[in-house]
């Protein structure tokens, strides 16, 4: 059989369509790779190919996507043993297109985290350096793709949870425009921000997977019909395109990471693109607004985990005692923190000062991007202020962890499209470049990313 590890998912799909690769053989190859994973990337691996396996490579799915009959816990002990009676629309769309579910990937509990260390089922190691985090919250999906334990994967991004782990693992991660992909069957974190998207080896695979994810779903009234067919990227030049750079002077940005990004800006210019610095005047308040909005929505979404309908139950005594003990035992520290912050921010007398104000900051950030896109085609930033950090390095300081999402949160608050691609290495660890475009500009963003990817020629082969 062809060495599938050397091929991207699109090339494998091509072989399957031409009859040169049997879908079942491909599935078994990837299943064996997933089984051999030693990074902690998987929480569950499929035992066999489904009867109707189609001609797309199998996909690794973040644990928070409900898949009928398959353990789906969102990385939380409070859903231990839960096997949903239905499948998320996004996963169903991929299955209909021919991609079987390969396995469920590890993640930060309820997608709350930037290192995957908040999983209720243990951390994930970064395949570039196993003493480091893969990023999060879609850390299992990113590590699996980077290590060749999955041909491609899906995750979710609320404030950076696809883009940041993609950056830290040296792969491509796309956060689609809010509404492009149905959220039905995604175990909810912050409903006004959550969005499903691909984590892939290259930009072409991201476009191919995204093409099968989009569409309006009557089960998610915030989903919309994607306004145009998703194109597969082909650009090799950037002539006539302008890129507004933001963030290279920010305080928390590692100097060596900034240097790699500056090198990429040079590549953009060599390809014919124009680079200019831009200002996003309200983006510096993004993390502050995000850490009101996301916990507030989470505190409401997580009210349902009360030991009644699913998951384990603990405590004796009356109903309230059961609720309180079940939630105490089932939720991890970070989830408790966010429930507390969110409940506080929404409580009587504080709502306007916190949630109301944060929603106004959100308006300002969206206006910043609208203004930027009048002047430039794309906004580019580093994806993460640093390369992958050591396991344990930031667990004692929640705020330091939150600042990992400094460059990705503004795009989430504005609901726009953004992709992270590998820009190069810094001390042997991958650095990600973020390219953002207006709502529903994914085809253009991915085309530009494709031209850059070819020119950068990143060698995505981690040590482990």
């Amino acid at each position, binding site marked *: 059989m062809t060495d599938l590890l050397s091929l991207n998912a699109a090339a494998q799909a091509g072989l399957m369509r031409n009859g040169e690769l049997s879908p079942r053989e491909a599935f078994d190859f990837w299943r064996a790779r997933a089984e051999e994973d030693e990074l902690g990337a998987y929480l569950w691996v499929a035992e066999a190919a489904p009867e109707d396996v189609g001609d797309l490579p199998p996909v690794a799915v973040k644990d928070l996507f409900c898949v009928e009959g398959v353990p789906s816990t969102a990385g939380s002990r409070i859903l231990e043993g839960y096997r949903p009676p239905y499948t998320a629309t996004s996963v169903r769309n991929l299955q209909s297109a021919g991609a079987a579910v390969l396995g469920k990937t590890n993640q930060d509990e309820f997608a709350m985290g930037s290192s995957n260390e908040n999983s209720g089922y243990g951390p994930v190691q970064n395949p570039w350096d196993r003493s480091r985090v893969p990023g999060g919250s879609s850390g299992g999906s990113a590590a699996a793709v980077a290590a060749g334990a999955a041909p491609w994967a899906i995750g979710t991004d609320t404030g950076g949870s696809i883009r940041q782990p993609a950056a830290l693992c040296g792969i491509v991660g796309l956060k689609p425009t809010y*509404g492009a992909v149905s959220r039905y069957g995604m175990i909810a974190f912050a409903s006004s921000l959550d969005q499903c998207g691909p984590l892939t080896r290259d930009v072409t695979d991201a476009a191919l997977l995204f093409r099968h994810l989009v569409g309006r779903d009557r089960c998610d009234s915030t989903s919309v019909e994607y306004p145009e067919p998703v194109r597969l990227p082909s650009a090799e030049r950037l002539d006539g395109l302008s890129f507004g750079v933001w963030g290279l002077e920010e305080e928390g940005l590692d100097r060596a990471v900034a240097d790699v990004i500056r090198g990429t800006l040079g590549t953009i210019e060599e390809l014919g693109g124009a680079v200019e610095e831009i200002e996003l005047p309200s983006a510096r308040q993004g993390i502050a607004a995000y850490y009101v909005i996301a916990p507030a929505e989470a505190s409401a979404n997580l009210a349902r985990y009360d030991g009644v*309908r699913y*998951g384990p139950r603990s405590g004796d005594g009356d109903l309230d005692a059961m609720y309180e003990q079940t939630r105490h035992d089932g939720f991890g520290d970070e989830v408790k923190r966010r429930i507390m912050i969110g409940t506080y921010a929404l409580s009587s007398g504080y709502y306007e000062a916190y949630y109301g104000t944060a929603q*106004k900051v959100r308006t300002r950030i969206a206006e910043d991007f609208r203004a930027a896109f009048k002047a430039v085609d794309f906004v580019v930033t580093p994806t993460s202020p640093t390369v992958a950090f050591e396991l344990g390095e930031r667990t004692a300081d929640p705020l330091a962890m939150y600042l990992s999402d400094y460059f990705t949160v503004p795009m989430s608050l504005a*609901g726009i499209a953004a992709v992270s691609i590998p820009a190069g290495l810094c001390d042997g660890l991958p650095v990600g470049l973020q390219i953002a475009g207006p709502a529903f500009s994914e085809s253009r963003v991915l085309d530009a990313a494709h031209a850059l990817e070819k020119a950068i020629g990143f060698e995505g082969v981690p040590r482990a």
Partner: protein
Amino acid sequence: MIERDQVLHVARLARLRLTDDEVDRMAGEMSKILEHVEKMSELDLDGVEPTSHVVELQNVLREDAPRGSLPRAQALDPAPDVAQGGFRVPSPGQG
């Protein structure tokens, strides 16, 4: 600064039991996070409309037609305790 009694009040609202140690730690961590949240006040937000939804959608309607839902047995299957075709819970107590 968030005090212990505020932590306990919020934990009660969230139906979340916290141990004594957790209450102390939470008070410190919440204070630090909310201090960062104060950065929002650096912006002049007078007259700015709040964004509740980023996609411009209005009145998403659907036909008011009945459709199937999850069979009862399937919906009850993941529950920790069921009885008589429903979820069984402890008594609400005196409250």
